[in-house]
């Protein structure tokens, strides 16, 4: 009985709210800013009611209000002030600029917190400049903006993925962070148009990230909040830019006569080039033929608005990015909708949809020419190869090929096949939030993520020899991911005198299903019909289904005393189907404390320093096994291994798959300690943050390639030992000049991270970084996981230069450390200057101390084979006594041929280069046209801008571009690789990777 009553009471308290009514009268007013200028669009709310209005163009308002009431006046950028009416009927109200540094609120897991109350390491990234820059992926906005966070582009391919590392590398599976977009957990941000991002906050330590537990908090959590409508006058904004992209540099290769000279040395006699090739007349510069000045343009339109009880935001976007390699492009059509509504004063609900559709035509990179790699083909195809075979060739008219080797020329690789991907990405959420009595807030949020992608490949049956031999071919591959997530939280916020509490408890459940299908056929009669119904032979089909789930309980307890002492405890318990069946649940606790020293009595007289705070945190974070093994417990058998007895009767069969099971496979978990200091000077115009951290990852998950004698099996295992990342992060924000007309603000951040593998038996090591060289299908391993060395350590022979007597490269006797792909430190430096409407900003980022394995050089300086090579080989050793760093041509004589052949096959320091760079990532000049001109056009704002991206990069790298990580983008984390089994990490390897571009754009931003 009592229970029922209570329940009804609860229910009613949620649904209804009671308003007190009083005597109303019309009140007029005017809202001014600090300088006495009128403020249009300011919101005036009568406190305790839902009645509100906004000021007109001259800052005036009129509203019926109770004469004993209180106005709450708010406007973006100004502090909300409360003005009691006190019977007045004409009121002038002055707003004051918000002291942002003090009141800044940061988004944290399952909530938000005043920045000054934060006791953990969180970076807030300024994203104001995103719309002025040609930013394609949301995470690009972070580049150089935050200490402890390194963003690197994996390749320059249009629409290409980026890799993000928070505080070093926390997993041998790659260590990409967890993304949380408006509460939706996701391993990528494909669905997000960067123009719709309101803020990005990065949770770096255990105390901040631990509330996300095993979902990936070990690698940091990137919280993205999308734009919402604001109270006040509806705003419509149109942003357009267009621009061009260019390759940063090209690599010089041999001309025909140089190629003949090299071949003559290799063969001992001139190469036998058939007469249908023209060594004099055909001089195709393949790089000039495939690299172009590529266009990039984008249009974004958004309209938003809000009342006191609700708001909306609608964004539409179009992006067209051509690749700097002909035939590659990326188009995106995006739609974002965000709606929030108060149903009553106690209940609000809302939701958002981030959707886009992308069209991509890609070219193959990160592969040798034999496997279709366009970037390498442009370097290794000799210049005498014609684009099309001449009429006297055995098969005239097809794309030109060498008579010596089977790789196609780059134009053939681009145009004799189609590589199209169409993807739909949707990320949506809905929530209901209810204010309960006793300062409790209950929120339930249901999220959905849908990603599908259809990849179509078509090989022309006639235009190339490759296509002719199979009569063309086509693949159609599809995958779909559907994930739902249901979060429930109960939040309690209360202050008792000097004690403040903010407590949240909740549950979260995630279920994801993945389906994929592949279809292949060959035997096409015509290139006019490219769909698989036109195939007549070699039919291959496959479908696969996968599913996983996670169930979690979590809580956080924030306590503050006297605004001086802050304490936070979080706890999360996660269960998941993705770990071994013997170890389903894991616990992730974290604690942190902060001391606002500047609020102490003894600091009262210190005026030159503000907001001095120290904070200390400790906690555990986790990371799930990679997608490549969704059922790690089981040893798997493949169905679909038939045998055709009598050469006809196809009998279905079963044979071992590559996975051997491990029911004890645990989460990766990290124990992290963080010590931080925050302080402001000169009235908080200069703010300094420093953090020291120590992150020790145990139970590292490694997809172990077992010896080939196991039938080339793999198994997922928790490595012995630890992956330790420790480092310091420094960040300085300064409003250097803050005049009426001129302002200059600046941020500089510095991060140093030391990564080490510790606690592994000295005799045990694990190989990573596989590459395939030339036509080989057997990988060479370039990297190692070994005690005392960082992840991403290159491991091979030390090259001791070229022996002047033999011309051979001399190697050390044993495999040794050749340096690490991880940088020693990174620096970001951004500045913004504004003079009246004119503003100039630039961003410099620098990465120092990382090594790149230039596997491209293994092919273009291989000094063997029939392909073309880099002009570097002109310096090759030719006769005894020659002092050079480039060895002799192979096959030259018969001595020591075995050792000579090792030149290409040996992983050695000969191919290790310094990947450090210092670059002007971005420079933007913009001009906000004066209001009086703009208003004549009927607009409320008009801005024009121009930007240059990657304008200059200082480096010593011999390849196209030092920022290269073709295999390191953390695809293990992505659902499209579900069940693919193998997941060896590769860092800092350049293997014909799509080069990065310089980008110049100009744009206009119109506010209606």
């Amino acid at each position, binding site marked *: 009985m009592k229970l029922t009553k209570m329940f009804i009471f609860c229910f009613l308290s949620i649904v209804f709210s009671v308003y007190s009514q009083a005597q109303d009268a019309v009140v007029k007013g005017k809202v001014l800013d600090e300088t006495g200028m009128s403020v249009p669009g300011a919101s005036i709310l009568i406190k305790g009611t839902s009645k509100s209005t906004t000021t007109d163009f001259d800052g005036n308002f009129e509203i019926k209000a109770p004469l004993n009431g209180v106005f709450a006046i708010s406007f973006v950028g100004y502090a909300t002030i409360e003005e009691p009416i006190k019977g007045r009927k004409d009121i002038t109200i002055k707003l004051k600029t918000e002291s942002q540094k003090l009141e800044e609120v940061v988004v944290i897991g399952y909530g938000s917190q005043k920045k000054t109350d934060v006791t953990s390491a969180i970076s807030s990234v300024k994203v104001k400049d995103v719309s002025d820059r040609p930013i394609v992926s949301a995470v690009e906005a972070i580049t150089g903006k935050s200490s402890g966070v390194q963003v690197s582009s994996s390749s320059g391919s249009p629409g290409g993925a980026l890799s993000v590392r928070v505080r070093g590398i926390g997993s041998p599976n790659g260590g990409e962070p967890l993304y949380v977009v408006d509460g939706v957990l996701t391993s990528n941000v494909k669905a997000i148009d960067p123009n719709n991002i309101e803020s990005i906050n990065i949770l770096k330590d255990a105390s901040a990230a631990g509330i996300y537990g095993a979902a990936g908090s070990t690698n940091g959590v990137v919280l993205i909040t999308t734009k919402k409508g604001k109270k006040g006058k509806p705003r419509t904004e149109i942003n357009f830019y267009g621009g061009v992209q260019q390759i940063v540099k090209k690599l010089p290769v041999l001309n025909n006569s140089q190629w003949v000279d090299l071949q003559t040395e290799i063969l001992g006699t001139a190469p036998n080039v058939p007469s249908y090739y023209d060594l004099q007349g055909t001089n195709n510069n393949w790089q000039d033929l495939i690299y172009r000045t590529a266009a990039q343009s984008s249009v974004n339109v958004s309209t938003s608005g809000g009342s006191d009880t609700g708001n909306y935001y609608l964004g539409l976007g179009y992006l067209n990015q051509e690749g700097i390699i002909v035939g590659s492009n990326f188009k995106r059509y995006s739609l974002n909708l965000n709606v929030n509504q108060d149903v009553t004063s106690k209940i609000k609900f809302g939701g958002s949809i981030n959707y886009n559709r992308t069209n991509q035509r890609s070219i193959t990179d990160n592969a040798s020419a034999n496997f279709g790699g366009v970037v390498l083909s442009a370097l290794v195809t000799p210049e005498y190869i014609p684009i099309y075979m001449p009429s006297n060739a055995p098969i005239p008219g097809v794309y030109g090929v060498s008579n010596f080797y089977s790789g196609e020329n780059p134009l053939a690789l681009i145009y004799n096949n189609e590589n199209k991907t169409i993807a739909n990405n949707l990320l949506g959420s809905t929530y209901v939030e209810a204010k309960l009595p006793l300062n409790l807030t209950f929120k339930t949020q249901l999220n959905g993520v849908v990603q599908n992608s259809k990849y179509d490949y078509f090989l022309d049956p006639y235009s190339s020899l490759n296509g002719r031999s199979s009569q063309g071919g086509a693949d159609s591959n599809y995958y779909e991911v559907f994930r739902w997530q249901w979060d429930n939280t109960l939040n309690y916020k209360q202050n008792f005198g000097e004690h403040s509490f903010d407590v949240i408890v909740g*549950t979260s459940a995630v279920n994801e299903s993945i389906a994929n299908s592949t279809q292949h056929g060959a035997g096409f009669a015509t290139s006019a019909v490219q769909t698989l119904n036109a195939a007549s032979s070699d039919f291959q089909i496959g479908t696969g289904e996968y599913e996983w789930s996670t169930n979690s309980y979590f809580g956080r307890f924030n306590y503050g005393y006297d605004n001086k002492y802050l304490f936070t405890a979080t706890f999360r318990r996660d269960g998941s189907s993705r770990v071994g069946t013997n170890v389903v649940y894991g616990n992730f606790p974290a604690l942190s404390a902060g001391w606002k020293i500047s609020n102490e009595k003894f600091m009262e007289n210190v005026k030159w320093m503000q907001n001095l705070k120290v904070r200390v945190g400790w906690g555990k974070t986790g990371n799930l096994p990679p997608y490549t093994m969704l059922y790690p417990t089981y040893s798997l*058998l493949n169905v679909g291994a*038939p045998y055709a007895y009598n050469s006809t009767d196809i009998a279905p069969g079963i044979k071992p798959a590559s996975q051997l099971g491990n029911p004890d496979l645990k989460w990766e978990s990290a124990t992290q300690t963080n010590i931080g200091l925050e302080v402001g000077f000169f009235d908080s115009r200069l703010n300094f943050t420093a953090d020291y951290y120590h992150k020790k990852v145990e139970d590292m998950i490694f997809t172990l390639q077992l010896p080939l004698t196991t039938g080339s099996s793999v198994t997922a295992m928790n490595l012995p030992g630890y992956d330790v990342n420790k480092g310091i992060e420094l960040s300085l924000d300064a409003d250097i000049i803050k005049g009426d007309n001129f302002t200059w603000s600046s941020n500089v951040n510095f991060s140093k991270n030391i990564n080490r593998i510790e606690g592994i038996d000295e005799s045990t090591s694990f190989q990573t970084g596989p590459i395939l060289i030339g036509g080989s299908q057997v990988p060479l391993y370039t990297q190692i996981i070994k005690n005392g060395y960082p992840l991403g350590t290159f491991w091979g022979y030390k090259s001791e230069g070229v022996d002047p007597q033999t011309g051979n490269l001399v190697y050390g006797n044993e495999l040794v450390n050749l340096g690490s792909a991880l940088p020693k430190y990174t620096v970001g430096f951004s500045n913004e200057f504004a003079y009246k409407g004119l503003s100039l900003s630039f961003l410099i980022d620098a990465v120092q101390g990382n090594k790149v394995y230039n596997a491209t050089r293994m092919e273009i300086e291989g000094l063997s084979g029939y392909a073309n090579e880099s002009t570097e080989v002109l310096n090759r050793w030719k006769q005894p006594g020659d002092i050079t760093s480039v060895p002799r041509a192979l096959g030259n004589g018969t001595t020591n041929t075995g050792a000579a052949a090792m030149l290409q096959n040996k992983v050695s320091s000969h191919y290790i280069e310094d990947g450090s760079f210092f670059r002007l990532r971005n420079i933007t000049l913009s001009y906000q046209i004066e209001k009086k001109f703009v208003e004549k056009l009927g607009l409320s704002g008009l801005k024009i801008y121009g930007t240059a991206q990657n304008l200059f990069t200082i480096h010593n790298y011999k390849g196209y571009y030092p920022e290269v990580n073709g295999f390191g983008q953390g695809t293990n984390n992505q659902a499209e690789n579900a069940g693919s089994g193998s997941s060896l990490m590769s860092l800092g390897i350049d293997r014909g990777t799509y080069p990065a571009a310089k980008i110049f754009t100009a744009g206009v931003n119109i506010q209606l």
Partner: protein
Amino acid sequence: MMKKNILKYAHFLVLAIILTSCSQDFLDKSPESQLAAGSLTTASDAESILNGAYNAMPDYYSYSNFFTTEGMSDNTYINGDNNVEQPLENFTFTSSNGEIQLSWQELYKHITAANTAIDNVTLINDPKWDGTNRKAQIIAEATFLRAFAYYWLVTSWGNVPLILSSNNAGNYYPSRTSADLVYAQIIKDLKDAEAVLDNNPYHGDYGRATKGAARALLAKTYAQMGDYPNCLIYCNKVIEEGPYTLVADYAKLWGLSNKNSSESIFELQVPTTGSPYNVWKINVLSYGPFDNWPKRQIGSYDLVKAFNDAGDNGARYTSTFNWQVTGASFNMPFNAWNPTQAIPFCGKFSYSDTWTNGDNLIMIRLADIILLAAEANVQIGNQANLDAAKNQLNQIRIRAGLANTTAVTKSELALAVLKERRLELVYERTRWNDLKRADANGTINMVNLMNSQVNSSLQPLNYGMQEFHKLLPIPLGDIQINKNLLPNNTGY
């Protein structure tokens, strides 16, 4: 106050209902598109996993097997377009050679498939098998397949890890077992299979292991061990107890319409069209009018000369070679053939303009065993044996349209048998092991023979073969993972 507290609890109650809605079942997920090992229970499951063990054959036998037998030997020139295959031609390969690693990898995959079949079937007890020996037969067929893979492993590498169960009792890092013990295991496996299997394949399915296949492989294994008396015993069982007869016309051994002939002892089965597994690799030997692929192996000048010297220009010659001018890449040893003129492609496999070549691949046929019997007779060397050898040799020569042999003495006959095996069995992956036996028997010096190879303009090819090249190096890729494989074979 009391009321407030109760109220608080009530809220938690409502929440508790919502928050704990997930049960343990929610986290219980098992593979949907694959099977978990150990989940096989029926007789038909047992047949399926045996089919899978056969399915694992073509990867090695239709591709890699050609390089380390025909390609490395004097029979063919390797015409690859990368630095992986070419070193096998001129003996510049090292332990990091990818083709060698691929062979090793594929053979152990085949062994793993056979072991998985044996392990899983051993655990299955289905009443459908009552009153039959089918369960034992399934295990015997798989055992035969495993023995075949070990035959190639031990003859190519010498000491190799001997793995006889699907997970090797959890020892993923095995050491190498001495070649003697590996041979002993092959003999044991084959004798077990011989005892259980019938002369005719189960269910009349060509392609299955049979008693005759087990005996033929026993003969080949004993020969490679140098145990000619036992070799001869098993050759004779195959020849006498059949059920095999020579095909009268050599040309009728080849082509899509001559699959599973009366001479065939064990044959890899490939559907004429629409093969469900990869066999396109055979295709890289055959000439195709529209190919730009550098056909991986082209008949050598020395091979063509051997035919010419023997006066062999009948069906055997025309079946073996397909002389064509290639429009494709040409990358064999320098000046081996003139690229503007016709060169000898392999004629034993037909060309198909898709990747799936529909030819079966003969693994062992009666002529091989007859000539092996001749070889055993010669090596045993009594006059009666020599006479028998001569008869066996002539049987093959007559079919090829040649006159009876003129060889008389033991050493003459030994050389004659070696030559005959070459002409009869080229492209059937016997040459490398034939040369190794002949070298061991003192018939030839293999190193000298290889290093004296000349091209079509009679210039030396300067191969750098040394004694140690008779065994392949354990692939570096596996040594890097498993240090227990060290030390490598001498010379590498």
